[in-house]
């Protein structure tokens, strides 16, 4: 099975080379994407088989290439299989979408060769059973996606995004390098097997810190998220879908692999930084998203929020595991991985939808969209499902993982330590807040893009996207629904993963009545997505039926009422900015140091009234600006060294000589 998976990676790399030549023509481009879809589907199948296979040891294949002084192992253990399934399922569907969407790229030769390499990199990370191939995959993933972000390289914004991305990705990889260096020890036992066997004591906290920095920067944990909202939207939409929906999951995998698998048994306090960062990430992510009017950037910021939710689950799992509460740890961990799965589905879906919109209108700015629900019905339906699902509303999948996380939070009084016991309720409140804000955010996203009246010519002349894209989006929407109403299957297939990560698994859910899930105890909590869904359908149908029987069938189309002041201009509609204004007032003044300036002409004056809103990115100002300033200032100061005279340079040599002589002379 591992061999199959490894050959899948090889195939993708081969496709990448083929892509250089195939990208010259549209059929070639389509072919490459179709092949990617097929390979990913195959890989997903392999991963699923591995996940459902009865528990067995890791069967890994040794590859004769790789690190010169070590051995390279590729293989699927339950953890990597779970992530491989998530990654490849989404990647397969996104590739299917790209068969239709990908041909619209302005320069396909800048996209097609890197796309399979990107997927191959992610798969390599998952398959790697040694530090070297892990990092090779990691860097390959970063590098390929960097090239993809640069595919529209003519816009300076994109170049800036790509630069920030590349630098931060590289910094993250270097911290992971340190982490592995620490784990491998001076003898360089780089295979995970060896690391687990040796498991040096006392390195755990540092590994945790490095994993938070390294994997966290890739995943988009605040304050290391800065690249994410720049880079994800800059790429072509199918790539954005992969970056946001899938690549961040690979980062989560990296964190889980390092902290849960390799770093040894956790201490209870490990959960504290994870939970704090996760909660801040969740809240800030959604607030950033709310302030954003660019559809793709909004989605990217929202990824930050979801990463926060995932890490809340992981932090809880750490706390529980450290205190020996294995069942609770399994619940929290399963919730996190379930959310990983969910997010990969709906975030890919939403990015594909935004791609369809972008393609149909040429606009990403929500202030210039509107009314697309009529021109693009299928896209609208799929996007709506994605919006509801991501807002964690039943009966879709986002709710289930959030519900599980809440259940895990409610178990936290069992924790013996005071700090997490005080912290967890606050985290829960943050989670609840961010969920509610997410709903607001996606009302805005869907409402401004698809509802109302078209705000520009481009929006009013849009047409539905192609068939491939529609099928891809609708199938993801269907998966969102299925995962929402049949969560038991997902939880059961995660059993082996939780067993591996925290040493326990949730009780099997498949035997429960109504296909409900019962994480702990039937008297404590249960949820049947299926039944809720069926009931809503029945209730809606019954109501509709009853109303139809009783009510008047007359329906008249007329101008909008609008309290008696209808205005023909679509400019009078609520805009994304005005929609978010109350929330900006409430939350933004602190977080973004938002400042509004209103220039209102006196009555009778015909001058234009102006409202200026200034938002500052406080994280960027507080963290990145000083670093950039420091580097720039140091570079500036040192740069004088380029313009010294020869005598000055000789003085340097002389000074170095005297200094070294003094050292030698004083050393005994």
């Amino acid at each position, binding site marked *: 099975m591992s061999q199959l998976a490894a050959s899948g990676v090889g195939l993708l790399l081969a496709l990448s080379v083929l892509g250089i030549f195939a990208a010259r023509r549209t059929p070639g481009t389509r072919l490459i994407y179709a092949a990617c879809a097929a390979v990913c589907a195959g890989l997903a199948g392999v991963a699923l088989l591995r996940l459902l296979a009865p528990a067995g040891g890791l069967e890994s294949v040794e590859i004769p290439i790789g690190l010169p002084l070590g051995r390279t192992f590729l293989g699927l253990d339950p953890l990597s299989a779970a992530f491989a399934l998530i990654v490849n399922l989404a990647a397969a569907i996104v590739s299917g979408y790209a068969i239709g969407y990908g041909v619209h790229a302005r320069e396909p030769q800048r996209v097609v060769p890197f796309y399979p390499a990107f997927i191959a990199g992610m798969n390599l990370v998952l398959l790697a059973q040694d530090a070297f191939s892990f990092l090779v995959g990691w860097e390959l993933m970063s590098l390929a996606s960097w090239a993809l972000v640069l595919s529209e390289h003519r816009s300076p914004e994109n170049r800036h995004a790509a630069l920030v991305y590349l630098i931060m990705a590289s910094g993250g990889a270097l911290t992971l390098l340190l982490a592995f260096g620490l784990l491998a020890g001076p003898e360089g036992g780089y295979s995970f097997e060896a690391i687990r066997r040796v498991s040096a004591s006392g390195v755990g906290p540092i590994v945790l810190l490095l994993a938070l920095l390294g994997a966290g920067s890739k995943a988009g944990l605040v304050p290391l998220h800065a690249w994410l909202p720049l880079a994800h939207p800059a790429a072509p939409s199918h790539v954005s879908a992969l970056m946001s929906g899938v690549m961040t999951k690979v980062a989560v995998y990296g964190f889980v692999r390092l902290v849960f698998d390799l770093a040894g048994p956790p201490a209870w306090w490990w959960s504290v930084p994870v939970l704090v960062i996760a909660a801040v990430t969740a809240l800030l992510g959604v607030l950033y998203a709310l302030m954003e009017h660019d559809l793709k950037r909004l989605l990217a910021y929202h990824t930050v929020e979801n990463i926060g939710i995932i890490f809340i689950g992981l932090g809880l799992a750490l706390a529980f595991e450290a205190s020996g509460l294995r069942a609770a740890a399994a619940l929290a961990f399963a919730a996190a991985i379930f959310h990983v799965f969910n997010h990969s589905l709906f975030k890919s879906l939403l990015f594909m939808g935004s791609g369809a919109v972008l393609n149909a209108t040429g606009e990403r700015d929500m202030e210039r969209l509107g009314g697309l629900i009529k021109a693009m019905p299928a896209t609208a339906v799929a996007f709506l499902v994605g919006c509801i699902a991501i807002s964690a509303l039943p009966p879709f999948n986002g709710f289930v993982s959030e519900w599980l996380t809440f259940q895990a939070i409610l178990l936290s009084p069992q924790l013996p330590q005071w700090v997490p016991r005080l912290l967890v309720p606050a985290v829960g409140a943050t989670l609840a807040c961010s969920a509610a804000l997410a709903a607001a955010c996606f009302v805005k996203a869907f409402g401004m893009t698809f509802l109302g009246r078209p705000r520009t010519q481009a929006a009013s002349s849009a047409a539905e996207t192609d068939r491939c894209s529609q099928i891809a989006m609708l199938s993801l929407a269907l998966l969102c629904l299925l995962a929402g109403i049949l969560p038991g299957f997902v939880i059961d297939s995660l059993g082996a993963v939780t067993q591996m990560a925290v040493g326990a698994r949730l009780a099997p859910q498949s035997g429960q009545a109504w296909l409900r899930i019962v994480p702990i105890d039937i008297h404590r909590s249960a949820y049947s997505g299926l039944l809720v869904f069926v009931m809503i359908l029945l209730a809606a149908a019954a109501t509709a039926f009853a109303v139809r029987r009783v009510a008047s069938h007359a329906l008249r189309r007329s101008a909008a009422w609008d309290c008696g002041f209808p205005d023909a201009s679509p400019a009078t509609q609520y805009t994304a900015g005005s929609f978010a204004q109350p929330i900006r007032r409430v939350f933004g003044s602190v977080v973004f140091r938002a400042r509004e300036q209103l220039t209102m002409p006196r009555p009778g004056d015909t001058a234009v009234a102006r409202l200026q809103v200034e938002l500052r990115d406080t994280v960027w100002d507080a963290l990145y600006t000083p670093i950039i300033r420091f580097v720039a200032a140091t570079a500036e100061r040192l740069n004088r060294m380029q*313009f010294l*005279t020869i*005598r000055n340079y*000789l003085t340097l040599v002389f000074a170095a*000589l*005297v200094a070294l002589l003094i050292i030698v002379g*004083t050393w005994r």
Partner: protein
Amino acid sequence: MSPLDSDIAHLLAGSMVLLSFLLLYQDRMFALLNVFALHAYALACSVAWQAYLQRAPHLFITALIALLFKGVIIPLALRRIVVRLGIHRSIETVVSVGPTMLFGIALVGLSIVVMLPVTQAEGPFVREDLAFALSVLLLGFLMMVTRRNAVSQVIGFMSLENGLVLAASGARGMPLVVEISVGFSVLIAFIVIGIFLFRIRERFDTVDLQALDMSRGEAL
């Protein structure tokens, strides 16, 4: 080796350090050239004495090179350059002479300190000879970096190199000393020719073709 032999070697090497100080002290161009010629003679004597002591006739060649090339040709050539290029007759220093001398003394101290732990098995002769050579080298270097004038910088480099030859000749039985001294002579000739070709009036770094600060590739 009799004590007298080593005392003479010692004396010659010591005189070179003294002459190095004199070089540092000079603030007139022609006086500097004269002192440098003396420096070269002292080196020649020292190397010749070593040749005699070590029964190494090839060292006489080195001594001869030092005498003729550094003691005669180079000073003459530099004198010509000074006249032809109209170089200032007084030497412009970065740090005034007083502190430079003090620093020079510190450098001699440093050379002795770093040579102190050298095992006694080598004998006091080699150890102190080396300390002198190192002092000459460092003083030459000091001169290079504290003088703005191209000619005095060249002289600094040559006195540095004299220190090297002193050390090489003091190392008993060291092969290639002659080749090395020839090689260095060529190098110095290059430098002197370079100064002449590029019409470097005041400093090494104003290769006086045009304002070179602008042509360092990356104008500020």
